[in-house]
């Protein structure tokens, strides 16, 4: 890390400290006994673990008149837990104030648990249906508050308390409460003034306070706890379960909740939590559910535990008086420390003694003491990354603060997005970003996570080498990244094929512009050209909206469809006759070239953000063509050119709509031609003439394009019949349409391949049709 960045971290920490957010407290935190450190929420991963599952009874010592007198001699509250090792720290039993509890008679005494869970629990514990009786003793939770029970083996009175966090999902509705070992326990314990007790050391080993358990590792001590419970006749049932349990992200071992002295940033101070929630509402979250997710997390999060007992990181740069524990809070000293770090790096903190960091002769402001100690914990790494908005965005002169966009995987709502939000809102009063976009994770073709053991890992380098970086880029753009996204050989070959189509479209466009004169023919367009220009504008509009909304798959598929459907299989097909066989400088050919050149430059621009390499390659060819025309004025890279904009004057939605009818007809005629081709009745479609019997709605449309129809349908002649045709192709898609495919009359023109009665009429060119004759003579 750079000194500059380290100093920024210290400055930001100082700012939090100066503003009063930072406090030291004993609180349960996720603790990894193996790494010997506290962990943040974001550093905990859930994984399967086998744990004991036990039902334990707590004997009522003094019901304070709340239970009644004729309930039989011994009455117990029953709890269920998967962490027997937390029982030494048990301080209370929590009930839900609104749940109904009842007394169940068994040979083991009267058991109190939530009414709704009686049957399930009795069954689990192993009572047969005739071995217990549900009595008429029924209470709501709040009627049972404050009953004194005995801890199963420790001389401690454990009271019943009330908490809204109790659920009926699992257990008995009575919750084992150890404020030193659980977040909810801690919170409810605060309300009741319970001791935050945790007789477990840094390595997860019971201390002397735990009596018979001293020296045992917590998870191993589960067995001892169960033995003790058995001997005290407090154990109702013991079994094993496999459940989701928090593990350390570093060493992958199970973690524990443990109260320790830690440094915290209070999320209640200065209304930090509320301010963050307000900021969340101002930020644009893509996809939308990101808002709900981070909102829920911030709403429910505990104070931010920022200290770590590690050696690799930026220290918490606080100094305390050895005599009274007062923290040195002089602003100038805090600023000097940040300055020191900037000059020497954070290691200076570990090298210099506290007295050398403080001004000479410095005395504690509270007690006048002269001995000082440095804090040796380091900062949570999520604090380090959370302040990047200050260390990078604010300080780098290329940037402006706040950022427009943060974009990471959807695991960062818990991590960087949240730590950045807290770090920025706490000191700057607002979120460090305007938009936050998240993506899912990469999985294989069948939706499985990639792993070495499954052998389904595909590395990016493999794709770049084997297929090209462009294919990797297309993969990213073609899939909806909001969900998990799949990759496989099959997907890659499909994308390679899609790429080939786009590339060929570009090649056709380039290939037919070699002799274009670059004049403006926009007022010489035919309807088919106007249609193509209008389609192009629609594409520009759609792709632009898609890019703006980060819907890249929408942009990519629109571009691909335009190339395949609108261009290759229609417009280019129709144009070929004009482009290849017209007089080179005929107005019609030039007009179509003008359209092709417009389409080429727009298409190149539209695809450049995704198909960057190919767009640049095509752009180079456009420019070098320009060079021959002594027109090399354009920018030298497609990225220096502007993104295409919609030209309103070429939008003709009415024409597009009308032509939809023609394209539908064309599809049907192609089906009829395909049948005849399969029968070897014709080879090339130009050998055919088609007769159409049209439904009413297509009649006017076709009559208005009589001369152009052969070109649209790629046949030599089209005739519109007045009466129904016999032995023809009957369309299913267009009801009432009949297509009769016949061999075209006349002979084949050896120049344009069309069939015409005029072939053979010209003595000096007996092999060509009249149209071609006029061109070559």
């Amino acid at each position, binding site marked *: 890390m750079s000194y500059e960045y380290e100093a920024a971290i210290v400055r930001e920490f100082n700012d939090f400290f100066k503003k009063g957010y930072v406090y030291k407290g004993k609180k349960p935190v996720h603790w990894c006994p193996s790494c010997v450190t506290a962990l943040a929420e974001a550093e905990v991963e859930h994984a399967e673990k086998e744990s004991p599952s036990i039902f334990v009874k707590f004997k009522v010592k003094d019901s304070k008149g709340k239970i009644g007198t004729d309930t039989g001699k011994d009455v117990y509250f029953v709890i269920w837990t998967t962490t027997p090792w937390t029982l030494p720290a048990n301080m209370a039993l929590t009930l839900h104030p609104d749940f109904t509890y009842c007394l169940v008679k068994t040979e083991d005494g009267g058991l109190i648990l939530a009414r709704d869970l009686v049957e399930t629990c009795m069954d689990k514990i192993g009572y047969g249906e005739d071995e217990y009786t549900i009595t008429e003793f029924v209470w709501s939770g709040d009627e049972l508050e404050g009953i004194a029970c005995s801890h199963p083996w420790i001389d401690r009175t454990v009271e019943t308390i009330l908490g809204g966090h109790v659920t009926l999902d699992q257990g008995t509705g009575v919750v084992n409460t150890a404020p030193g070992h659980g977040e909810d326990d801690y919170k409810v314990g605060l309300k009741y003034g319970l001791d935050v007790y945790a007789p477990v050391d840094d390595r997860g080993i019971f201390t002397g306070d735990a009596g018979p358990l001293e020296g045992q590792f917590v998870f191993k001590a589960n067995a001892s706890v169960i033995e003790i419970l058995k001997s005290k006749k407090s154990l109702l049932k013991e079994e094993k379960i496999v459940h989701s349990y928090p593990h350390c992200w570093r060493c992958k071992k199970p973690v524990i909740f443990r109260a320790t002295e830690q440094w915290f940033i209070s999320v209640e101070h200065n209304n930090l939590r509320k301010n963050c929630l307000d900021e969340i509402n101002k930020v644009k979250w893509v996809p939308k559910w990101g808002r709900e997710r981070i909102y829920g997390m911030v709403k429910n999060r505990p104070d931010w535990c920022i200290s770590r007992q590690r050696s690799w990181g930026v220290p918490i740069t606080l100094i305390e008086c050895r005599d009274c524990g007062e923290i040195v809070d002089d602003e100038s000293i805090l600023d000097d420390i940040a300055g020191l770090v900037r000059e020497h790096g954070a290691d200076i903190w570990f090298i210099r003694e506290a007295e050398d960091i403080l001004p000479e002769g410095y005395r504690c402001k509270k007690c006048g003491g002269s001995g000082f100690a440095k804090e040796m914990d380091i900062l949570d790494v999520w604090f380090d990354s959370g302040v990047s908005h200050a260390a990078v965005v604010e300080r780098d002169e290329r940037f402006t603060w706040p950022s427009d966009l943060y974009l990471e995987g959807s695991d960062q709502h818990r991590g960087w997005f949240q730590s950045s939000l807290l770090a920025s809102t706490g000191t700057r009063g607002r979120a460090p970003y305007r938009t936050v976009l998240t993506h899912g994770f990469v999985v294989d073709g069948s939706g499985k996570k990639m792993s070495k053991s499954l052998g389904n890992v595909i*590395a990016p380098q493999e794709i770049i080498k084997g297929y090209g970086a462009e294919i990797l880029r297309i993969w990213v753009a073609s899939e909806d990244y909001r969900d998990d996204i799949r990759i496989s050989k099959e997907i890659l070959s499909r994308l390679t094929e899609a790429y080939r189509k786009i590339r060929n479209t570009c090649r056709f466009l380039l290939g037919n512009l070699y002799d274009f004169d670059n004049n403006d023919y926009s007022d010489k367009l035919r309807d088919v050209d106007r249609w193509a220009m209008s389609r192009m504008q629609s594409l520009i509009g759609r792709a632009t909206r898609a890019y703006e909304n980060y819907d890249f798959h929408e942009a990519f598929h629109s571009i691909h469809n335009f190339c395949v459907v609108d261009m290759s299989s229609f417009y280019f097909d129709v144009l070929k006759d004009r482009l290849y066989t017209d007089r080179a400088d005929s107005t019609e050919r030039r007009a179509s070239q003008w359209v092709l050149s417009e389409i080429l430059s727009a298409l190149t621009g539209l695809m450049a*953000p995704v198909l960057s390499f190919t767009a640049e390659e095509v752009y180079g060819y456009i420019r070098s063509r320009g060079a021959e025309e002594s027109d090399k004025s354009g920018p030298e890279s497609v990225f220096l050119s502007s993104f295409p904009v919609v030209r309103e004057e070429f939008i003709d939605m009415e024409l597009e709509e009308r032509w939809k009818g023609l394209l539908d007809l064309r599809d049907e005629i192609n089906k009829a031609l395909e049948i005849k081709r399969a029968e070897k009745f014709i080879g090339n479609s130009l050998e055919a003439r088609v007769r159409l019997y049209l439904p009413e709605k297509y009649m006017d449309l076709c009559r208005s394009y009589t001369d152009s129809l052969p070109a649209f349908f790629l046949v030599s002649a089209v005739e519109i019949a007045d009466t129904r045709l016999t032995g023809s192709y009957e369309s299913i898609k267009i009801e009432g349409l009949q297509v009769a495919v016949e061999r075209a009359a006349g002979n084949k023109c050896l120049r344009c391949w069309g069939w015409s009665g005029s072939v053979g009429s010209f003595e000096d060119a007996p092999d060509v049709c009249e149209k071609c004759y006029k061109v070559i003579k």
Partner: protein
Amino acid sequence: MLDFEGRVVVFFKAMADNYKDTLNLPRTDFPMKANLSKREPEILNLWKEKKIYEKLQGRGDSAETYILHDGPPYANGHIHMGHALNKVLKDIIVKYKTMKGFYAPYVPGWDCHGLPIEIQVDKNLGSKKMK
């Protein structure tokens, strides 16, 4: 797609030579075969030589800014598809915004965690850890 390497060309090749010369058949050196893994490094070099990125950055003073702040990576060794997905998405956005006229500098985030290194150190020296 009926491209001009397809059946039209086959047909025209078969035609009498005297008519072929009268047609305006497509002409271009733009290769049909992409050969991406060979061509891409050449284009990268071209961008580098012509200092295209630097030229785009020259807009700093006049253009509206668009700031994408790249997150600090968790460097755990090898590059995987998740990295590719993340970086390509960012690249698409920055390129789009740049072509829309924004000044959109891209500054890669750097790892400020150092954790993976410490885990390795812990693995090697675990038992000697001071505590």
